[in-house]
């Protein structure tokens, strides 16, 4: 697969996404600078990586959402192309209106960096279709603004757009498993079509045994499988 990894000023997990895609999954990937107005030809999927685009000034993701490249991402997504947002990428996609809801300051008012568990659920997406519903993945979070807010969080879940929820090791959706005060423990959501997905935890930090956890790699492997089945190329006409 050919992955486009966006780079905004202040992105700092761009290299990490590149490493996991090219060195761990041995796929091909390239960086795309925010000032560009189009994605490389034959892009199969877009990753909006984590970091502090524009220093997280004003609101996390607010300024990056207006970058020239985001118009290209918008039309790529409208054609059904798979887009994955990680952490700051989640914030950017919400700010850009590609995903519902918003990410507010953590309820603890602190930056939180630690391992969490998330449960995979919702409708199938290119990033989760190979992961059985209900499976618990262990991955780290590292964010200050990760409290998911939506004015109809319940409805969102009913439509299958809640893709990841913070849970305990056994998959229980508990208050004390919620690291940031997100509504209904929501850790990740999708758009109605399911091709745009984002989450606050960092799957790229949980993709190698040497770094401790490997659960996150399933998200990238899932993408590879769904692209292999032609789901990713359906959008191109």
């Amino acid at each position: 697969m050919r992955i486009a990894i966006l780079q905004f000023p202040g992105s700092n997990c761009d290299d990490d996404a590149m490493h996991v895609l090219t060195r761990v999954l041995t796929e091909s990937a390239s960086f795309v600078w925010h000032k560009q107005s189009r994605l490389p030809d034959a892009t199969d999927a877009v990753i909006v990586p984590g970091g502090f685009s524009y220093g997280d000034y004003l609101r996390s993701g607010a300024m990056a959402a207006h970058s020239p490249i985001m118009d290209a991402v918008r039309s790529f997504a409208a054609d059904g192309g798979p887009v994955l947002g990680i952490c700051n990428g989640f914030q950017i996609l919400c700010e850009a209106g590609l995903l519902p809801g918003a990410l507010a300051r953590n309820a603890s008012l602190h930056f939180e960096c630690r391992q969490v568990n998330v449960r995979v659920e919702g409708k199938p997406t290119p990033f989760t279709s190979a992961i059985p519903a209900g499976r618990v993945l262990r991955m780290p979070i590292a964010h200050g603004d990760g409290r998911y807010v939506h004015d109809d969080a319940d409805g969102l879940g009913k439509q299958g757009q809640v893709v990841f929820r913070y849970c305990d090791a056994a998959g229980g959706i508990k208050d004390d498993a919620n690291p940031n005060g997100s509504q209904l423990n929501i850790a990740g959501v999708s758009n109605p079509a399911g091709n745009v997905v984002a989450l606050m935890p960092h799957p790229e930090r949980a993709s190698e045994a040497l770094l401790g956890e490997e659960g996150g790699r399933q998200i990238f492997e899932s993408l590879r499988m769904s692209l292999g089945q032609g789901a990713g190329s359906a959008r191109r006409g």
Partner: protein
Amino acid sequence: MSAAPEPEVTRAVGRAHGLTDDEFDRMLSILERTPTFTELGLFMSMWSEHCSYKSSRIHLRNLPTTGPRVVHGPGENAGVIDIGDGQVAVFKMESHNHPSFVEPYQGAATGVGGILRDVFTMGARPIANLNALRFGPPSHPRTPYLVAGVVSGIGGYGNSVGVPTVGGNVAFDACYAGNILVNAFTLGIAQKDRIFLGRAAGVGNSILYFGAKTGRDGIHGASLLASAEFDDSSEEKRPTVQVGDPFTEKLLLEASLELMAVPGLLVGIQDMGAAGLTSSSVEMAARAGNGVDMDLDLVPRREPGMSAYEVMLSESQERMLAVVEKGREPEALRILEKWDLDAAFIGTVTNTARVVIRSNGKLVADVPADPLAEGLKYDRPRARPTDLDALTAVDPLALAQPRPDELGATLLKILASPNVASKEWVYRQYDHMVRLGTVVGPGEADAAVIRVQRPDGTWKGLGLVVDCNAGFCYLDPYEGARLAIAENARNLAVTGCKPLAVTDCLNFASPERPETMWQFAEAIRGIADACTALGTPVVSGNVSFYNETEGKGIHPTPMVAMVGEIADPAKAVTQNFKGEGDVVALLGRQTDELGGSEYLKVIHGQVAGKTPRLDIDLEKRVQGLCLELADRRLLRSAHDLSEGGLAVAAAECCVAGSLSVGAVLELPQAAVPELAQLFGEAPSRVLISFAPANQAAVAAAAEAAGAGIELLGRTGGRSLRLGRHVDLPLETLSHAWRTGFAALLG
């Protein structure tokens, strides 16, 4: 741009700027005329304690600074050691004590920013940060505010730039109530053949300013604040607080590395740190034996009406000065434009060896670079503090002792005390994983381990640690400094990393007091002896004097950070017990020493007694053994004994992991009182656990190493039993240790 005419420079004006009359006369004889006001500013800042190391230099030269791995020792922006495969590790530690006391968030944040620039200015990509913090007692009304501000400032800056903070150290003592310590460390990786130095080489080359615009921030900041003690008048002298902009720093980092990647484009580069444009231009000129000619009207500015003096002394953050190969200026500008950074060519390199500054079409400074950069050198009087005899005469075992049935409660009290309790509250606020390098992160082992990719795609590891027990140094600065070096090295060794080199941050009170200078000289002697014995040269460092408020100095705090290596990072050893049925053993030798211990601090409220003695030979044997056992993968866990002694180490091994594991342990056989067995802090001891199948191999290795080993018992059960009188459920231990820190800070 109209600036007020410059005041005339007299001795009185010189005194008001911190120059003694002797120093003033020296300046006159160098210039052979009365300086301009701008020139006075240059002398004042370059000759400040902070920039010139005038009180410390004659002692610092006693440190061992060379070795087979040293590529660049002290004198450059950071130290550089060879880590094989054509790669080097570039690292340094810096203090930002005073600014952090004035404004904890911004002070700590800009401290991190400054040390990051020191490292990437040499062509290295920063891959790990550490921080060492000292505060007044938690009960002091300002402490919680300072802790919260400093910690979120460090996180706010490092997290945003995207450099993981992988470890550190926090401690509390009354001596820091009016003078906190914030020491920040950065390590970066570069190619050995692509190291950049701060040299204004090549007459005719262009001087490039890039990064943030210049404002009135921190004028006299580092140079004055770090060079004179705090008193009421510092309120007026207080400069505009420097505000950190990590976003601009991240752009600066990427742009600098991109500029450096273009062959031959940059000739030299240096960040604008303390004393801003002054120190960067003067030092770059002096190192190359050249001069510079700069026009300040070309400097990008944030505020109107700044004088030449102000522009030269501004400590606005996130700025760099580079020398660009003549004729290639547009190439450099194109890269900086990509990163949306301000940039301007502000002058040229000359062959005059003089620093020439123009402003408003006028010559405002013309001084020889060398004597400015060379600075001053004082041999200040030294005297052993008179109260030391009484303090060290205290016999800890003669003080009231807990009854045997109170020993468990004593352990819990120590576990929940601020210096010993888990620091998770702190490091959870730091991104310690970004960049995918963190193999062993904060809270997992005695040292952090980060991985570095070899050119062939395989991984090697670097171990990082920072520590200093200032109580030990207060009671005996020589022995305390030796212990600090030994403990850092031991922390690396128990994690499986061979110690390589040291950077330090020497935090002391006023050098104008003979007691301080005695402490300083003793500490340097201790560092030098221990580093020589352990083969770990000092490759960079920083001195912070005047850490005192209203005549009360801090305990001497020679903070030490050490870097080690491990060929295969998968072999790193962590501290927590891994499961039931493992054998637990103690390496080293027991003593009855309790001086300077956490037990004395927590239970008796005293920093007193004799600092434990270091047997450097035993230390080397124990460390060598740890390295061997780790390399042969014979260990399940290893944790050195430090604050709180055996009892705290055992408790941490039980509860520090994500799963708690109990243990049933005897105390060592030594003829030593139980209190010292439990809480004594003699060095060179390590608590290890291993699978029963490995017992013969471990014992044989210990025997061969002559390190001393004693089997204490086995892991298992839901409590920690230690000797005859301590038996505590894991939940109780865990609660005390995990919640102690946050609870104390309210």
